[in-house]
């Protein structure tokens, strides 16, 4: 009967109903699919340990790891020795990042804005950048000792280069029209830099900062592995030497949380500062 009804309506009167095909997987919400992947991961982990596929020294069970996570978490919250160690690493990272930002930005402006910097300094920076920078760790220890200074130096050393490159690239991003416009307005070189080139280069600079934020963590931990001290890296090294694998796992997890927080801070700042540049945070969005 309903079929007859539809037939009675001439084709031209019917509304166009367009059913777009979306595959089942694309329709699953992100939170659900992420939980799913995590569950599969845990399941495989549990399976491989309970079937005895891997030795418990190499891979602890998820249960053991979780217990240790709780233990370390309590220790951190109660302000015990682990928090002190974390605080040392946090300080290294923050000082290292701040140093890298100051040096990286200054060098970036020098290289990106002056012909001298571009011709005479950039080649050296590129040469140093291609070296494996952690190889400098023993040197920093020899120069600065076993305290946090040598770790700060290595962390800053690693994070500086992406910031230089990001800043220089950002300064080169200004298009011909904008330069010409500033010229017609009679802008000085300083005004052109501050009111046009720097703001226009912010997206590239933040890309450099994000790469730097990852590098600064790696630098601080590597510094602690190779140069001792009392930081979080030392805790990991000790736990590993005692074959306390669950501890290593949970320490790494907490460390990653800190790394994630640093990265999130940079991203958050970027959204505030570069609110006008859609492409720089599209994709980070839900």
């Amino acid at each position: 009967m309903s079929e007859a009804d539809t037939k009675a309506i001439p084709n031209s009167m019917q509304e166009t109903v367009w059913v777009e095909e979306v595959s089942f997987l694309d329709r699953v919400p992100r939170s659900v699919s992420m939980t799913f992947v995590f569950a599969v991961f845990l399941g495989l982990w549990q399976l491989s340990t309970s079937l005895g596929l891997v030795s418990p020294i190499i891979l602890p069970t998820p249960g053991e790891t979780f217990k240790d996570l709780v233990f370390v978490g309590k220790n951190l919250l109660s302000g015990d020795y682990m928090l002190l160690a974390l605080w040392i690493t946090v300080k290294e990272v923050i000082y290292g990042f701040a140093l890298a930002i100051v040096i990286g930005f200054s060098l970036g402006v020098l290289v990106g804005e002056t012909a001298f910097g571009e011709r005479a300094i950039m080649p050296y920076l590129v040469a140093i950048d291609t070296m494996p920078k952690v190889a400098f760790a023993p040197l920093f220890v020899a120069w600065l000792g076993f305290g946090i200074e040598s770790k700060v130096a290595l962390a800053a050393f690693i994070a500086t280069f992406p910031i230089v490159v990001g800043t220089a690239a950002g300064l080169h991003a200004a298009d011909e029209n904008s330069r010409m416009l500033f010229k017609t307005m009679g802008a000085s070189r300083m005004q052109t830099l501050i009111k046009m080139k720097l703001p226009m280069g912010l997206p590239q600079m933040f890309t450099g900062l994000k790469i730097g934020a990852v590098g600064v963590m790696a630098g601080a931990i590597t510094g602690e592995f190779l140069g001792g001290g009392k930081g979080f890296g030392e805790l990991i090294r000790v736990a590993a030497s005692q074959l306390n694998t669950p501890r290593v796992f949970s320490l790494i997890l907490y460390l990653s949380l800190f790394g994630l927080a640093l990265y999130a801070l940079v991203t958050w700042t970027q959204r505030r500062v570069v609110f006008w540049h859609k492409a720089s945070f599209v994709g980070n969005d839900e």
Partner: protein
Amino acid sequence: MPLSAAAADASAGNSAPVYELTNVGKTYARNLVIALEDVSVTLHRGSFSSVIGSSGCGKSTLLKIMAGLIPPSTGRVVLQDQPVTGPRRDIGMMFQQATLFPWRTTVENIVLPIEIRDGRAAAVKAKDRAHELLDVVGLKGFEDVYPNELSGGMAQRAAICRMLITEPAVLLLDEPFSALDELSRDMMNMELQRICAEQHATAFLVTHSIAEAVILSDHIYVMKPRPGRLAEVVTVDLPRPRTLDMITTPKFGSLVDYIRGLLDKGEAL
């Protein structure tokens, strides 16, 4: 009222010259291209002139010399009795792209030339004037909007305001609406005519549309290429204000044909 006065001035052709170029030549040192040879242009106060010619015949070069962005190789360039030796505040310029800065609101973009020349305090004071100009171009209510929310035509209107804020004596327009679609372009051209009349502006437009040149101009400088020279200066004596339906009149048609003939002859050389 000011409109008809400007039109009368222009058609009389004997009002004071604002901008005078005499025997200007330009050879780019880099590649020894002779971009301009012996070009003379006189812009009278309140008149609208266009330069038309095929691509590469030196139109942008001419405009850059007039804007004080590059020096001429030979000849004299005099604006308001002062030789042009660099960018000046009595020159306003507009390009094919609106080039609004996305981190500034519309009104902040418009007062940018003031901020650069006279500092931040002066720029804040100039905001009242910016609001008036936005009203003139029909962008009232978009003062505090960021440019990525403006359409192409709206962005070019804002760029017009930015050009006018320093009250320049001459407006230099390098294909300002050629990035817009045809309907918006026609509309913006009519707007441009109205704004120029209201502001008593002296304008010099680069275009490669013959119809656009004819509908807007009092004088059309037709150029021929290699090296860039003037073929002829065509006077358009259509009455003002011009309207889009004039395009269908025989007079308009014959002017367009005549200019096309000049351009074809230039190409054939």
